């Protein structure tokens, strides 16, 4: 873990709060989060590409009702961090997508557990109304810490594993992953056409 990657994890954990917990100003969108995170890695073009690919790939899943979409911030952060560690972009992106899916599963578990904890805080707020601000700050702080913990652990584990595996990966697997990576914008762009289907009238 280099200082740059640690900074990247902190920035990603902060941006991830924008998804649900604070402000919701769309800082957590792929096309915004990835270029911001790439300022830390210093490779802006890679940041744009990862951002565009992430947003296009996750464009068909929206946070409607109880649906928890995979995190674009986590995907961008993991991809950029692993690429910075020396992994090819197509492998890094594959790990990023896997990380985003795992993160949304972890988030679901966290939400279920936090619900029990929130009942206690709701009782406290009912008794002492001034507790609401403290509860919100505490909820934000714990979410930030959990985000940071999960993102950094995943980057560290995935980085160690992939760097160990890299010399053993045959050239054919490189080609396969590269082709799949090349397909990502087209998968996403083709989804946008039916996304605008005129069913609203």
């Amino acid at each position: 873990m280099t200082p740059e990657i640690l900074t990247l994890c902190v920035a990603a954990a902060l941006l991830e709060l924008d998804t649900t917990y604070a402000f919701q100003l769309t800082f957590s969108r792929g096309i915004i989060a990835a270029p911001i995170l790439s300022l830390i890695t210093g490779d802006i073009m890679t940041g744009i590409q990862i951002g565009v690919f992430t947003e296009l790939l996750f464009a068909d899943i929206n946070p409607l009702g109880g649906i928890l979409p995979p995190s674009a911030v986590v995907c961008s952060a993991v991809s950029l961090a692993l690429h910075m560690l020396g992994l090819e972009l197509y492998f890094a992106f594959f790990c990023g997508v896997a990380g985003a899916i795992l993160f949304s599963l972890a988030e679901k578990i966290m939400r279920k557990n936090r619900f029990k904890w929130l009942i206690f805080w709701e009782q406290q707020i009912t008794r002492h109304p001034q507790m609401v601000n403290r509860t919100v700050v505490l909820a934000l702080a714990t979410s930030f810490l959990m985000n940071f913990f999960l993102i950094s652990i995943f980057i560290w584990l995935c980085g160690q594993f992939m760097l160990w595996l890299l010399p053993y990966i045959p050239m054919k697997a490189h080609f396969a992953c590269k082709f799949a990576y090349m397909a990502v914008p087209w998968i996403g762009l083709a989804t946008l056409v039916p996304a605008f289907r005129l069913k609203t009238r």
Partner: protein
Amino acid sequence: MKFQNLGLTFVMMPFIKELYRNDQDALPSVLQRYLENFNTQPIMASFCFGALAKQEELIAQTVSLTQFKEKVNDWNSIKKSLSITTASIGDRLFWGTLKPLTLLMALFIWLMLGVNFFEIDFPAQTTLLYAACAGGAAFFVFNAVALFVKWQGLKISYSADERSCFGLTRFDWNKTIYNAKRIGLFLAIGMILFGIYHYLKDFEDIDVHFVTRAVIVLFFVMISFVTRKLRIPNMYLYLSAVFVFNIVCYL
């Protein structure tokens, strides 16, 4: 799960404190109502805030227990019905239309500035200004609409009544969404064509690389339409592509 109950309480807290400044004992029972289940679209929630604030004022002004119960029942039904309606409109407008629309806008800006994000081998470096342009434009357009709706929602819903559905009927949401989707559809098709041009423009002859790229574009555009019909998320299509390509390479 109570979804956004804590958020609602946090937003309404300054108003509730001011309203019940001379009746601090009422606060626990008032907060209990706000801490009940609440779930809507976060931007459109401002319509709920205004309407609930107005109704809360009526509750605070009640003089008899019967009147109080009646107003509290009204408050609960406003909260429930308005949160469902605003969620439905907000999901279609913001997540279903404006988000992909601003994405397309950003993609067009980047391609027009010469930032070819399709090129995966040696993407040419770009300046920070160019990188910020498209992302910034998407950010500002989305948030300008969101802030306008938040501001107007709060203002209108506080002054409007039940007959105008707390101000919701002042906007023609369906027409707005319909028009935005029409623009989006036009931009999405344009983006595919523009993208294909950028993806293939550097090839002078039809060689194996050109054919490979053309096949990838055609195959995945076609298969995306199929998976969309089958409600299979894109990410699983990508993960399957990695898996299938690996098998094909080893055959």
